[in-house]
């Protein structure tokens, strides 16, 4: 078994128009910039994207949006240092937004990966983000019912990976990546370093390979923050 794929282009080649794609990261940390750029190059459009944010500047997710590939965005916080790309398209009605509280977003993705079709949370009860959702009382307190969230693809960023798809992450770049790996039909991981089997201690595997379909090495991944400070634009 070898889940390694030689190139970024090959890794994203199967993603069709109209696909739902979870993209890891919180702001720039843990964002798989190279996989996103490969997705731009692939030409796929009408995508539904799940990410905590809506991009920053003109690289990564912001570039994917700027290239008009994203039909709908599911996120918690579509703001950033430079959110103009999303803001302008949203205000012009050119992109759909599903706003989800951050903890609910994380839990919905986890539920998607764990085979839990729905759960109850106190979050958003009594607010406009709960409009139209079923509610229920447990032990005298009110809760909102939320549904699982799954996707066709997940593009994630990890630090170490092996041929079986076992992954570990770097510091706070972990964030949504391990969750999204579980909730997609096909999970593609870019890793900064490929190690031999056993190169990640079994105790320290964060994402077991069962959740990963493709591994592609990106030795010195770009950081969104650094790209934006350099005023980079993709493509």
């Amino acid at each position, binding site marked *: *078994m070898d889940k390694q794929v030689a190139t970024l282009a090959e890794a994203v080649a199967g993603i069709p128009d109209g696909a739902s794609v979870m993209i890891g990261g919180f702001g720039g940390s843990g964002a798989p910039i190279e996989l996103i750029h490969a997705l731009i190059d692939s030409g796929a459009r009408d995508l539904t994207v799940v990410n905590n944010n809506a991009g920053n500047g003109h690289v990564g997710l912001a570039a994917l949006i700027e290239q008009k590939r994203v039909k709908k965005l599911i996120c918690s916080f579509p703001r950033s240092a430079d959110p103009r790309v999303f803001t302008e398209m949203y205000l012009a009605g050119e992109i759909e937004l599903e706003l989800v509280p951050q903890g609910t977003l994380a839990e919905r993705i986890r539920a998607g990966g764990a*085979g839990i079709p729905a759960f109850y949370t106190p979050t958003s009860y009594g607010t406009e983000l709960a409009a139209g959702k079923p509610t229920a009382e447990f032990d005298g307190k009110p809760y909102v019912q939320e549904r699982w969230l799954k996707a066709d693809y997940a593009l994630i960023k990890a630090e170490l990976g*092996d041929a079986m798809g*076992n992954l570990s992450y770097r510091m706070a770049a972990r964030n949504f990546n391990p969750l999204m790996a579980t909730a997609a039909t096909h999970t593609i991981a870019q890793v900064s370093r490929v190690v031999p*089997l056993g190169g990640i201690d079994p105790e320290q*595997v964060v994402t*077991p390979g069962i959740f990963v379909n493709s591994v592609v090495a990106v030795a010195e991944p770009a950081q969104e923050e650094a790209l934006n400070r350099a005023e980079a634009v993709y493509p």
Partner: protein
Amino acid sequence: MSKMTMEQLAEIKLSNAQIAWRAAQDIEDGAYVNLGIGFPEMVAKFQPEGREAIFHTENGVLGFGEAPAAGEEDWDLINAGKKAITLKPGSAFFHHADSFAMVRGGHLDVAILGAYQVAENGDLANWSTGRGGVPAVGGAMDLVHGAKRVAVLTDHVTKKGDPKLVASCTMPLTGVGCVTRIYTSLAVVDVEAGRFVLREKLPVITMENLQALTGAELTTNGPVGDLIAPDL
């Protein structure tokens, strides 16, 4: 043709090892597999040359291997049957909620379980005889949900000769409509659209005799192959 006696049946039927061998032939290289405690565990021994499945155990290990030599056991490294195991390269540990996320979330390719009864609609009874005593379910009710294929290994009939493939389970259910394929001592049977579909049978048993030992209609929708297992 006259009905077979239990003695005649005992002569022709596959052994448990042979049933496990047959099930192993359907497991692809790289498949993620959970083997139920007991009889299904034998499947691991019969992986075809050149294929390697990755075995999952509910208590939080992916990628485990054989039992260690006696005296070499580490009792922090056990499987769901509480037997000592070893690790293969590329293994991983995780907690019970993550382990059952793999199960319930549909990430396993195959789960293989034993059975008291399987109904033609795929209902499975394998956790309780319903006769009292101390009930115990473990992970059985979880394992029947989520794996892409839920396969059952079983003798075709009970020790008394009663069918285990039935029109409707009379024993307490483990899961509803969950079984996709049954490997028995006489046949390989799929569950499709609420019917038993015969895929393979022992060459020495007639269709009539096999049907007589089965509690619901065995349909066919294609060729029926010969079920042939090596001596084991």
